[in-house]
């Protein structure tokens, strides 16, 4: 077993070179290169985490913006609805008032016309009376040779007309 057989003559060289070379590995590679490799990994992890956080923030912001838009949209819709309702009510009112004025004008015309009709009817009735009285006067003169006065004839006609 050379490990034991050669121990006395080689141990110093083995230990010397091991310490020298492992020292190189430890200081140059372990202390020099490993921290930089780990820094790179750390930086990458940080960047990924930051990007994720930024993405999350952007998402939250967009959600917020959407919510705000939705609220504004709802408010706008409500305002529009109110405007429409108001216009409708206004139109209703103006229509009603217009209808009322037209109605009252029509009513007035109707009343006027009826009054005129009544007046014409009264006039016509008076004329018929006069004509009937004159006819009655004339008839009684010719048939019975009785001279009836105008007033007597008129009262007789009136009596007859009242009886129908």
């Amino acid at each position, binding site marked *: *077993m*050379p*490990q034991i057989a*050669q*121990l006395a*003559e*080689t*141990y*110093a*060289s*083995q*230990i*010397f*070179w*091991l*310490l020298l*070379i*492992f020292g*190189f*590995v*430890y200081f*140059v*590679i*372990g*202390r020099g*290169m*490993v*921290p*930089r*490799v*780990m820094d*790179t*990994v750390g*930086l*990458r992890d940080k*960047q990924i985490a930051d990007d994720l956080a930024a993405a999350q923030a952007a998402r939250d912001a967009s959600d917020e913006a959407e919510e705000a838009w939705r609220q504004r949209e709802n408010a706008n819709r409500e305002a529009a609805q109110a405007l429409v309702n108001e216009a409708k009510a206004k139109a209703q009112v103006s229509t009603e008032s217009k209808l009322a004025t037209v109605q009252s004008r029509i009513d007035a015309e109707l009343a006027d016309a009826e009054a005129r009709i009544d007046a014409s009817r009264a006039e016509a009735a008076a004329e018929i009376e006069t004509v009937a009285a004159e006819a009655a006067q004339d008839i009684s003169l010719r048939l019975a040779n009785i001279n009836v006065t105008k007033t007597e004839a008129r009262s007789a006609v009136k009596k007859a007309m009242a009886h129908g």
Partner: protein
Amino acid sequence: MAVAGETAKVDPMYQFTIQPLLGENMDIAGYNIAFTNSALWMMITAVVLWIFMLGGMKRELVPGRWQMTVESFTGFIDDMLEANVGKAGRKYVPYIFSLFMFILFANLLGLLPLGIVGVHPFTFTSHFTVTGVLAIISFSIVLLVGFWKHGFHFFSLFVPHGTPLPMIPIIFPIELISFLVRPFSLGLRLFVAMMAGHVLLEVLSSFVIDGWNAGAGFGLLVGVPSFLLMIGICALEILVAAIQAYVFALLSSLYINDAENLH
């Protein structure tokens, strides 16, 4: 893979022999520090690991495959320390990562089938001088952190919660011994696992070679099944290479957790 010519004898232990390559007589304060094949493979491991890590230094926001691989290894160690030690575990990532990757690459490079081009890969993690030093480094960190953070209160680690007072004199030495055994078990586990796998592969390969040398009958009877078994065990060894590196790093982080958080 040392086939000694005619006799076709395979010495399964020969692969662990350390051979000086440069500066055979280089001394520091009387200690020989020759540049050996073991040191060469440590260097190769460090360089391959460094090249591997360069792929992670592109620092692109969207990583390519290579960068992704490097990042998954650092993330793996980071998660392991986070799970075992907690937030305080982060400062040990450089050490545990170096330990894990150094052992992992050493184990895997030692398994490379370079023998077919005449080069002998050397698995320095199959030497307890190496695994022992790594275990002692881990253990020293545990001791330093433990005494630095908790002072003498660190000894309460050896008295589990709820121990009845009369039991303390018995429990304390048991816990202390089990604590002190840790660096040995840590170092020996890796050394034994790597050596055993390589010896097994070497023995099976000697069955293949010796079987065919003994004739076609032995070749079919012994060589072919051994070769099939070798293929399976090679796959297993790749798994073991990763598992042992993981176990070493995991246990180191668990021991560091004891020092950080007591219990």
